[in-house]
């Protein structure tokens, strides 16, 4: 799903990078990720422990950085916001947040959940941008 999103954004001319950090005890399964996407897959290690000590995150968490390298949003998989990419709502939220990070324009209308603040600024009641949101029929099952 992330690869699908990446290709969609590239087609729309939205300049974004995608990167996955594979869990440190899933080293043997890195190819399961690399076979399903074409973007960078960094392998966490016992020594670095990027998941735990650097990112303070858990499996399937998303982090969205703006171009200057600062964190716009942390979307925890277990948080109040739906970030399940197999659902239209989750897919649209992540994609819209990424578009916002790239362009500064909020392109979705998804509840914030109250856990984060917008570094880029989100206009109240922002209208849905059809070019940045897919139809539910376009969203297929399958993670990562």
């Amino acid at each position: 799903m992330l690869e699908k999103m990446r290709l969609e954004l590239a087609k729309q001319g939205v300049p974004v990078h995608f990167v996955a950090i594979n869990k440190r005890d899933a080293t043997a399964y890195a190819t399961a990720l690399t076979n399903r996407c074409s973007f960078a897959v960094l392998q966490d290690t016992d020594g670095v422990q990027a998941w735990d000590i650097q990112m303070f995150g858990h499996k399937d968490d998303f982090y969205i950085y703006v171009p200057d390298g600062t964190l716009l949003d942390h979307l925890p998989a277990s948080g109040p916001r739906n970030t399940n990419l197999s659902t239209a709502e989750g897919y649209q939220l992540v994609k819209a947040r990424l578009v916002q990070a790239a362009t500064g324009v909020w392109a979705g209308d998804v509840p914030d959940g109250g856990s984060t603040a917008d570094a880029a600024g989100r206009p109240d009641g922002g209208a849905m941008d059809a070019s940045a949101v897919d139809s539910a029929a376009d969203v297929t099952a399958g993670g990562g």
Partner: protein
Amino acid sequence: MHPAPCPARRSVPDRTPVVWSLWVVALVAVGLAACADSASTSSTDASGSQGSAKSCVGPTPLAAAFSAKPGPVIDPATAATPTQQAPVLGQKAPQFALTDQQPLSCGYKATYGLQTFAGKATLVALLAGW
């Protein structure tokens, strides 16, 4: 009335090999042009950066990254318990370096961190390959 007799066939040099050669050259040229166009398009789609001639995805790390080791390495015996427990919005991406396992990535086998992605909005996903 008898039809006029056919004129004697002139001896014409056989140009068939030359014609075929020209056709083959033309077809090869057309094929190469089509491949070049296709490759250019696919690299643009793959990288998402228009006008790029590279055929890999994502930013290219510094040359030193290709001989670097993952770090910083935490010594569990001496590491203090981090006081920070959650990512902070507006904070710069943490500084660490890990090795890229993606053969399609421009940083394949290089060891680098999130700073390499600065300049574009970036989505970082914590995934487990199993």
